[in-house]
Every structure is written in structure tokens, then in C-alpha cells.
């Protein structure tokens, strides 16, 4: 039973990280029907920013929690700026082009950002400080789920609640939903679509940065390539849950994380990816739009 619990919580943690990245994919897709392949790179840049800030702040001798908070905030701002800029440079000029053009542009942006970090930083793995401290009160349960994993779960939950609130109850959230439903109509009723799209990129990037900081401080190392693998998995999760749907992305991520964890725990880690993708195929056979996706007729 304890083993089951450990695997369950491990899978949940992994799923939460996927969810933070998957939300960016799904929000962007929901609004402009673009698969933003550079999104994984934003996650990686978030982790790198946090590492640089944390290293500098450690020199000033700040305490750990302060470093964690400041590094996260800087990472979020910096990544959001990257997300905003990427959209302006790579996608906005192609807004009225064929659907394939922005996709290629996204792949190009992903390769560019990876290599930019490779050249500007290093190709080696870098140690990432464990910014999340080991809580004393949690010591008794730390063999089941560590403090870092606990923080990841709690942070993700809070972020999800805030996001739901933002989308359901704020003006910008309403504008985003309107744009997602019909961009031209939203424009006609006075929604500043460009602003909404920019905002979507900023929010998605900020979420990815949070994920980057959390996972990097959990596993303790980063390099320029981490965004690619995490991005692919998160994208899979978004498709699994129904791309374009926000609760779908979260659900898909958790399902993917749990499947991987249980497949490793009860079968073999050799088949971790096999199970994850077999599940994806099965779900897409029975629900082509994903678990919570709405199957809409293609607008031509």
C-alpha cells in the first residue's frame, strides 16, 4: 500500500510539472490554433534564469526561501518576456499565412533558443541548487514524498486555481475565451485580439517558468536540452487531455504522469514510454479530440 502511495504521489508530481507546461501549449492552441514548439524552450530558459539569479543571490548570503521566491519571480518575468517576444517575432507576422508556416516558424524558434542557450551558457549539465528546503515538520513522511515534491504539488494546485479564476472571472479571461471561440467576432465586439494573444503567451510562459524552477530544483541539474524532452511530454499530455481545453491539459498531464509512474513501478521502466504512448493511441482511437476535447468541425 505504501508502495502504491509512493508511486501515486510520484506520478502526481511528474504530472503536475507536465501540467504547468501543457497549459501553455493548450492555451496558445485554443486561441490561435498554433502548436508552439518553442514552449519547452521557455521552460528551459526559466530554469536557467533561476539558476543565474540564485547563484548571484547566494553570493549576497540571502536565506533559502528568499532566494527561491526572488529566483522564481525573476524567472517568471524573464520567461514571460521571452514568450511575448517570441510571439511578436515568430508568429505575429505569420498570423494570416497558411497554418503550416507558423508551425515551421515555431520549430525554428525552438532550435534557435536551444542553440542560443547552448552557446551563451554551456552544453554541460549544470548543478542546480536545491532551492526548496527540507521541511522539518515533514521529515516523518519524507520517505513517501519529499518536501520538494510536496511543494511542487501545492504550487501547481495554487497556480491552477489562480488560472481558473483568471479565465473565468476577469475581463482578460473573458476576452481570451471570446477570442478562442471566434477571433473575428471578438474583434468586431471590441476585443483587442493582439493584446489577448500576447497575454496568452505571457501567461503560458510564466507557468512554464514556474515548472522549470520547480523541477530543476527538484532534480538538481539542468542543461540546454531539458526543454525538448519535457516539451514533448507536455505536448503529448495536452493532446491526451484534448488540446485547446484547459482542464483537459491538467487531466491529461496527471493521467500521463500516473501512467508512467505505475508502468515503471509495476511493470518495468523499460516500457515507461511504451505505456504512455499506447495510452495516447488508445484514447485518441476512442475520443479523437482527447479526453475533454470538443470535436468541432474544421473551419476552412
Amino acid at each position, binding site marked *: 500500500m505504501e508502495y502504491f502511495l509512493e508511486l501515486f504521489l*510520484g506520478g502526481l508530481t511528474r504530472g503536475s510539472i507536465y501540467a504547468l507546461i501543457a497549459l501553455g501549449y493548450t492555451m496558445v492552441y485554443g486561441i490561435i490554433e498554433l502548436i508552439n514548439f518553442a514552449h519547452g524552450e521557455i521552460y528551459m530558459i526559466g530554469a536557467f534564469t533561476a539558476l543565474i539569479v540564485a547563484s548571484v543571490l547566494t553570493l549576497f548570503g540571502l536565506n533559502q526561501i528568499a532566494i527561491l521566491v526572488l529566483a522564481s519571480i525573476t524567472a517568471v518575468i524573464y520567461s514571460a518576456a521571452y514568450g511575448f517576444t517570441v510571439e511578436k517575432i515568430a508568429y505575429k507576422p505569420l498570423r494570416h499565412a497558411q497554418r503550416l508556416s507558423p508551425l515551421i516558424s515555431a520549430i525554428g524558434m525552438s532550435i534557435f533558443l536551444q542553440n542560443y542557450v547552448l552557446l551563451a551558457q554551456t552544453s*554541460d*549539465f549544470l548543478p542546480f541548487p536545491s532551492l526548496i528546503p527540507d521541511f522539518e515538520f515533514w521529515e516523518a513522511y519524507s520517505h513517501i514524498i519529499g518536501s520538494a515534491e510536496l511543494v511542487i504539488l501545492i504550487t501547481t494546485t495554487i497556480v491552477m486555481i489562480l488560472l481558473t479564476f483568471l479565465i473565468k472571472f476577469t475581463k482578460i479571461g473573458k476576452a481570451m475565451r471570446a477570442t478562442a471561440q471566434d477571433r473575428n467576432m471578438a474583434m468586431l465586439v471590441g476585443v483587442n485580439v493582439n493584446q489577448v494573444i500576447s497575454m496568452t503567451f505571457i501567461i503560458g510562459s510564466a507557468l512554464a517558468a514556474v515548472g522549470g524552477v520547480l523541477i530543476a530544483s527538484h532534480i538538481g*541539474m539542468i*542543461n540546454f536540452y*531539458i526543454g525538448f524532452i519535457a516539451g514533448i*511530454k507536455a505536448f503529448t499530455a495536452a493532446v491526451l487531455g484534448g488540446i485547446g481545453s484547459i482542464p483537459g491539459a491538467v487531466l491529461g498531464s496527471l493521467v500521463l504522469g500516473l501512467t508512467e509512474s505505475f508502468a515503471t*513501478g509495476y511493470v518495468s521502466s*523499460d516500457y515507461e514510454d511504451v505505456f504512455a504512448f499506447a495510452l495516447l493511441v488508445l484514447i485518441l482511437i476512442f475520443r479523437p479530440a482527447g479526453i475533454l476535447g470538443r470535436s468541432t468541425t474544421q473551419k476552412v
Partner: protein
Amino acid sequence: MNNHLRGLFITAVMVLVMIFTLTGNGLTAEMIKLGVAGAHSGDLASYGIPSVKAAKLVVEDINAKGGILGKKVEILAEDDVCKPEVATNTATKLLSQGVNVVMGHICSGATKAALGIYKDSKIICMSPSATNPALTQSGDYPNFYRTIASDDAQARLEVDFAINVLKFKKIAVLHDKGDYGKGLAEYAKAFIEKNDKAEVVLYEGVTPGAVDYSAVVQKIKRSDADAVIFGGYHPEASKIVMQMRKKKMKTIFISDDGVKDDTFIKVAQKYAEGVYATGPKDTSKNPLAIAANEAHKKEFGAEPGAFFLNAYAATQALLNAIEKAGSTEYEAVSKALRTEYVETPLGKIRFDDRGDAIGVGFSIYQVQNGVYVELK
């Protein structure tokens, strides 16, 4: 008339040919012929060229001192481009030139193809770089020796260390699903299974680059293993070690030369402490190795390439054995290789019954206070 002249001409040519071949034999009988075979051109030439240079340096050195058994040593270098189908021709050509011993070949596949030919002609062949375990372990090639450890040597050392030195009974074997890591893990698993003192409690491949390894780490914990033997590279190793330590697991971590890398310590930091890894024996302080590298720089104006020291040691071992045996005769040289120690840049070596060098290969290193320390 024409026919008569032609007959005479042919006879003359034949006589001349016979005279030349006879004198040829007569002259070269005073030389010891060392065949050097391997990839000297093509895309794998960088593995073969250093062995030719090593042989040249050793031979120049020995000839300057008057040669062996009063004879000068001559090098016959032949290219096999690391291709098995070419290597058989290379071997045949060397035999037709009357080699006494062969230093080579470089690649395992080419070496194996050539070995049968040498074996039939009772020629000893010593490779500086062919690491395929079966070459020595199959027992098919009693004429084969090598100055490099075989592919399974690290796995053998890791298992031996875990079972006989650390006295562990339950061992988990993990790998990264790659050629290198999985190959090592398979050997390690086979060695543990052969040994009745310990058992493999877990055998798994992990996905390289995965976001985290918590599920695998839980599985290791549940298997109650005393130690983990990991085949793979340092990024995965440091993730696994760090997650184990954060879960308060004290399971010993043993790995290979893919992990015996300073980046591993730099990344895993305090969690790296106590980790064991196998790595090539440290030869950097061996005076003969320093001298050989210096000689290479002086002669060729560059740092030596791959397997240079192994080839240097192989040439020395072969020539030393001929000297000790007092002849180039197969049985006597084989006996000398197995019994007489020789000082080489790789240390003091001789060969076991299978043809693997004793004293060459890997050591166990442990991370102590943030550096890898060789355990004696």
C-alpha cells in the same frame, strides 16, 4: 629459332627470380619481421595510425640498442581499413612476406577475421585495441593476446567488487538502454547470476533524459538491494543518486567510466560522495608512459592518438617475449608472453592463459571529499 629463344628467355627469368628470392630469404633471415596491421586509412584511421607510430618508436629504440638476439627489427605495416573482408587479405599478405609476429589488428571484427589465418600459420597476434570479450574468452584463438581490457572487464570488476569486497548479496542492475550502458549491464547481470553468493533483485532500463526517476528509485527501495550497478552516463547517474539520497536511501551506487567523470561530482555535489565507479588505470604518473608520450611529441610534433600507449606496450611485450624465448618460434614465444613480466607504459604486465593482459585495465574509484580516488 624463336621458340628456342623464348624457352631460353623463360629459363633465364626463372633462374633470376629464384636467385633473387633465395638471396631475399637469405638477407631477411637476419631481420625480425614485426607485422603492424590495422586501419591506416579510411574513416577509422585515427585508431590505427597511432599504433604504427608506437611500433616505429619502440623499434627505433630497440634497433638503436642493437636489436633483439643480434637481429634488427623490421616493421611491415599493412592496412585493413577496419573491414573484416580486407583483414583476411592483409593477414595473407603479411604471412607471404614472412612476418614473425603481428601487432594488431585494431577493430574487433577485423581482428577476428584475421586471427583464423594467423592461427593456421602459428603466428602470434597482439591487439592494442580489440575489446570484444569473445576474442580471448572463447578459447578459439590461443595465438591471440591484447593489451587492452575487454568490454566486460568493467562489469566483471564492478561485480567482483560488490560481491567479494563489499560482500553484498542483493544487487540491482540498471542501465540507460544505450549500447554502452546496456552492454555493461548485461555482462554485470550475467556475472552476478553465475555467482551463487549474490542475486540480481532488479534489472531495468531507464529512459535517458526523463523528467525524474522517482518511480525507479522507489522500485530500487522496494527491491531492498544493497547496491545498484548502473551502466550508462553521468546525467542519469547523478539524477538517480540524488533522488535516492533525498529519499534517505543508503544504497551503494556502483557505476562505470561513463560516470567516472568530474561533471558527475560537479552536478551531484554532496550526493556524489561515496559513489564507486570503474575507470581506466591511472598511467599518467608512469615514467615509461611519460617518456613514450614525450618521444612521440619529439618525433611527430603532436600529442599521441588513441591506443598509443596500448600499442607501445604491445610492441614491447612482443619483442621482449622473443628476446626472452631466444627465438621467434611459436611455442617458446607464447610461453614467454605468459610467464615473463615486461615493463611497459601501462605498468608491469604479462598475459593470462586466455591472452588478456594481467595488470592492464580498470581500477575502482570512489568519490571521497569531492574527487575520484583510485582504490588500491
